[in-house]
């Protein structure tokens, strides 16, 4: 039997049993919204699945029953008659299911009578009024059921929607009427609704029939007798097994510890064996619980295919990370929400083909599903490149549903408004299709995810699409962790997040340096922000006493003495290990005193009393029996960015209003000349140095300093040439190839991570523009302006290269900041640069004058048309096909690179990787040259 079908049968029969029980409960307690909500969801799920499997009879029945229940949910009075009728329809569903499991085909016949009765009740009439006779089994129905005239407007609309045929009242009209009639004004609506006939079964059937035939044909080929070689085991049983195994591991470790202290022991061999068996047992038990997330995704391609037919949209489903393993229990819980969300993306997220073409997008809509581990969590992302959430419509709904007042709404950021789609009973779909749109969707999703201790978040950009991000903690799993120590405390850091370990020593090249109070480490020509574990955990640190302090102080000048003392202090205080952690795009180092082993640890959930501490993801028992806390790299990353600038959070969310996706930039803040802070992208800075004033050698009108065996020119921020009289002066070093220049500054302030909203309005040399950073106007330096000053030949020298011909380059980027930053860099590398703000302008430039450019560099994330589409378009154009194009992106992932190659990018470079870009350009052009 078709996997999908057999699974559907098992699930549905289970659900129906629950519905039976719940309905009876509900009849006794009609005011219990929880029970009703539960029933409604179950029936909704049944209906949805039927639709995809091509089971029109079941779907029609379930839909009619759901409509009636929807009415009850909206507050209509519950009657025995109604409940009996729903029970009857459930019985019908069960009968059909029974046939289905035998023959794999929906039996012939229709359920028009039951459906018609369900509709009658949905419209607020009783069966007696409508002159309908209850069907079999409905003899229990009491004819004395009270009449219900309070017709609910939303229910009425739902009925009409299903029956919509050309020529009838359109939904938009109804919606308009509904919106223009505030307050309980159903009288207007009801007649319209009732005026329409109710031949729903007929309407639903022909559409779904061909699909059913196709689906069933395929399924019949499968071997029906194929039974999986597995048994169902209660998860609790596995859980207990796991606990016992953990304890066994613990005991084993203790025994081994004892053995280590005794030389010649008879226990040695049997213990070795015990140890091996334990390890295998542990692995085995672990395996019973772990499954690849791909198992939960199996159904999706088919669902998308069918949806694509139903909705007449071209949809491309991309799945990344199917092999990511997660706990079986978690997987089960996540399955339905995931299916639902993918459906939602297809149904509501993506536009129709026609709309897409109009918006200048590729006609194939894309849904990308990805799963990966991040710290101790599993992240599942569902991204579509559709129209994004409709903020205005959501706002309307929020007001209409009384979730917030107008005032409150006005204060919300766009993102906060979007989050209301997770509220119960919230659906913004105009049309209630059989696919989705009844408002059960997202709240079920959220509930299911929260049950397993996860959370769900969304980012939506109008016109670009929405991304839902589900984060599920690994509640029970064995992970490899690095055990680190601070003072006498030990902590575990999940190995997954650890990139490398660096030993910091005052004398070695890895020296912890301080910028104001922020610690940084120079690591491979980059500055790595550091945080001390005891600081972030708020632990009292036992400072090691400073020896030799003030030893031969009298012999050196005061300035130097001070510098020396603080150096010494830093050296001693700052010796230790740096654990380099990567969380998403963020990389930072944690300074610890000691690093022990890597151990396989059993993650145990932390007590609910400790749940609010986001710094820890759980705790574990080590081999020696002691309990240690497991650090959550995500929580720590959050904490660090909070510490770095808690005020930014608000600014960022405000900036998101400005339609920006979350591009953040690390900036080095400093002061030079004026009191106003200045900033430069940290990635452009090679090093931070402090030079002795006495080392500066004036020569031919400018200042030079010995630096790494070369003379490095020093430059001053435009118009400020003041320096300390003696002592030391901080200098930012910028390097390119083997040349360096130093920019003299007064004071280095901080390193911050922020979203840059740069305003180019300062006609001042050396300044790109200003930006509001931490509420303060900050000048962003134009490094490109200073480079040619340092070396007169900075531009020219490359031109002198062999057979040099200046190459013409077109730079496409929607961000003015990057255009302005990269143009000088590329000019400096010897290109003649022209910029375009988007692919559309770029294509115009390219087509207007074929052969004008030698190479194109394009951003990936851009509105209207993204870089991938741009490359595809170029590839299709015979004049542009051979023009090399290099992608530039702030998000580099293997998937994106792969995609980039597919659509025709010659190379894929990270946005701030200047050197990488120049090299890539050179290589690309060289290869081109050879090929030509």
């Amino acid at each position, binding site marked *: 039997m078709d996997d999908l079908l057999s699974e559907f049968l098992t699930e549905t029969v289970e659900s129906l049993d629950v519905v039976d029980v719940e309905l009876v409960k509900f009849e006794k307690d009609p005011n219990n919204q929880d029970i009703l909500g539960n029933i409604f969801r179950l029936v909704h799920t049944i209906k949805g699945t039927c639709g995809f499997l091509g089971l029109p009879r079941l779907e029609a029945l379930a839909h009619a029953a759901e409509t009636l229940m929807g009415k009850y949910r909206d507050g209509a009075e519950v009657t025995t008659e109604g409940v009996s009728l729903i029970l009857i329809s459930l019985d019908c569903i069960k009968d059909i299911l029974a046939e289905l499991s035998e023959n794999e085909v929906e039996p012939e016949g229709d359920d028009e009578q039951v459906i018609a009765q369900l509709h009658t009740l949905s419209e607020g009439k009783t069966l007696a009024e409508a002159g309908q006779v209850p069907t079999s089994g409905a003899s229990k129905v009491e004819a004395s059921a009270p009449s219900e005239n309070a017709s609910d407007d939303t229910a009425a609309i739902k009925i009409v929607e299903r029956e919509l045929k050309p020529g009838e009242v359109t939904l938009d009209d109804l919606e308009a009427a509904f919106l223009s009639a505030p307050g309980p004004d159903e009288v207007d609506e009801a007649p319209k609704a009732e005026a329409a006939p109710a031949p729903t079964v007929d309407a639903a059937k022909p559409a779904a029939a061909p699909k059913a035939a196709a689906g069933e044909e395929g399924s019949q080929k499968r071997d029906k007798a194929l039974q999986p070689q597995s048994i169902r085991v209660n998860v609790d049983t596995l859980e207990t097994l796991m606990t016992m195994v953990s304890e066994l591991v613990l005991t084993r470790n203790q025994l081994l510890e004892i053995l280590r202290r005794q030389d010649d022991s008879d226990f040695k061999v049997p213990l070795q064996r015990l140890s091996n068996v334990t390890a295998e047992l542990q692995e085995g038990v672990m395996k019973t619980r772990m499954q690849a997330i791909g198992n939960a995704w199996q159904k999706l391609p088919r669902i998308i295919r069918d949806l694509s037919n139903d909705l007449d949209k071209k949809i491309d489903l991309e799945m990344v990370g199917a092999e990511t393993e997660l706990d079986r229990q978690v997987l089960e819980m996540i399955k339905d929400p995931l299916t639902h969300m993918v459906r939602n993306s297809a149904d509501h997220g993506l536009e129709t083909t026609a709309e897409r073409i109009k918006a200048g997008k590729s006609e194939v809509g894309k849904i990308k599903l990805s799963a990966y581990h991040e710290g101790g969590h599993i992240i599942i992302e569902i991204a579509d490149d559709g129209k994004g959430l409709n903020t205005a419509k959501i706002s309307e709904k929020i007001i209409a549903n009384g979730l917030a007042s107008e005032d409150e709404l006005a204060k919300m950021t766009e993102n906060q408004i979007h989050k209301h789609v997770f509220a119960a009973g919230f659906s913004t779909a105009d049309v209630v299709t059989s696919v989705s749109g009844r408002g059960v969707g997202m709240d079920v999703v959220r509930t299911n995810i929260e049950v397993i201790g996860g959370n769900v978040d969304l980012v939506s950009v109008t016109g670009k699409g929405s991304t839902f991000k589900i984060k599920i903690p690994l509640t029970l799993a064995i992970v490899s962790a690095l055990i680190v120590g601070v003072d006498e405390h030990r902590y575990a850091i999940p190995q997954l997040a650890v990139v490398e370990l660096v030993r910091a020593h005052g004398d070695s090249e890895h020296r912890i340096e301080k910028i104001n109070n922020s610690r940084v480490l120079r690591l491979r020509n980059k500055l790595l922000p550091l945080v001390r574990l005891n600081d972030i955990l708020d632990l009292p640190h036992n400072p090691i006493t400073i020896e030799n302090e003030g030893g031969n102080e009298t012999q050196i000048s005061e300035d130097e003495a001070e510098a020396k003392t603080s150096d010494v202090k830093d050296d001693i205080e700052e010796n230790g290990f740096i654990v380099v952690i990567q969380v998403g795009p963020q990389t930072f180092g944690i300074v610890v005193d000691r690093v022990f082993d890597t151990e396989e640890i059993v993650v145990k959930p932390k007590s*609910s009393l400790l749940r609010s501490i986001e*710094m820890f993801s759980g705790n574990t028992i080590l081999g020696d029996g002691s309990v240690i806390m497991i650090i959550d790299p995500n929580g720590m990353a959050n904490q660090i960015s909070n510490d770095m600038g808690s005020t930014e959070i608000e600014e960022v969310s405000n900036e998101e209003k400005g339609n920006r996706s979350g591009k953040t930039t690390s900036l080095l803040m400093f002061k030079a000349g004026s009191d106003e802070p200045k900033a430069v992208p940290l990635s452009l800075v090679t090093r931070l140095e402090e030079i002795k004033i006495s080392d500066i050698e004036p020569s031919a009108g400018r200042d030079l300093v010995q630096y790494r065996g070369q003379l490095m020119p020093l430059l001053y921020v435009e118009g400020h040439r003041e320096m300390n009289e003696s002592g030391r002066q901080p200098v930012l070093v910028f390097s390119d190839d083997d040349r360096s220049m130093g920019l003299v500054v007064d004071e280095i302030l901080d390193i911050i991570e922020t979203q840059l909203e740069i305003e180019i309005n300062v006609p001042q040399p050396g300044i790109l523009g200003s930006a509001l950073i931490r509420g303060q106007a900050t000048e962003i330096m134009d490094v490109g302006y200073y480079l040619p000053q340092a070396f007169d030949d900075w531009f020219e020298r490359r031109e002198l290269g062999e057979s040099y011909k200046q190459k013409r380059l077109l730079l496409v980027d929607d961000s003015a900041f990057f255009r302005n930053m990269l143009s000088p860099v590329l000019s400096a590398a010897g290109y003649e640069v022209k910029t375009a703000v988007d692919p559309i302008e770029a294509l115009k430039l390219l087509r207007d004058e074929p052969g004008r450019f030698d190479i194109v560099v394009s951003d990936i994330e851009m509105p209207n048309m993204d870089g991938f589409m741009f490359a595809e378009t170029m590839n299709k154009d015979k004049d542009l096909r051979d023009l090399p194009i290099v992608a530039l992106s702030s998000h580099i992932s293997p998937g994106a690179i792969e995609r980039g190659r597919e659509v025709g990018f010659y190379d894929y470079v990270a946005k701030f990787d200047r050197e990488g870009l120049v090299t890539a350009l050179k290589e690309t052009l060289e290869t081109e040259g050879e090929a030509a």
Partner: protein
Amino acid sequence: MSSENEIAQEYITLVIANQLFGLPILEVQDVFMPEKITSVPLSAAEIEGVLNLRGRIVTAINMRRRLGLDDSKNTDEIMAVGIEYNDESYGLIIDDVGEVLKLEKDNFESNPTNLDPKWAQVSAGVYRLEKELLVILDVNKVLNIIELQAA
């Protein structure tokens, strides 16, 4: 405390700072001497830390701090009563464990109105014993309130 309490209930008595407390015996899993408690940074002050009790991770609550008292001077011999709450294991750290008492409802009354709020927060009432008073601890309250504070 409803009608079922007409029947005598059994309590384990505990000593915290020379005051006698009682816990319903059904709530108590075991009594143990906590070893190697790992402190948890950033946690509420009442949380002494976490420890390993036969393979389970137990969250230890410092009852003295929970009651707003100073820490005990005698740190050598601390005792803990293990309780299960919402499928999680907790250990209440106390000074000493006494005996099991069977107490008649007649001698029970609600908290005196002038009881320190910190104590009233965790106490279900008081038994008048012959020689002294026994304050009954309400496990829900002892644990719940910390949760609220921490949240």
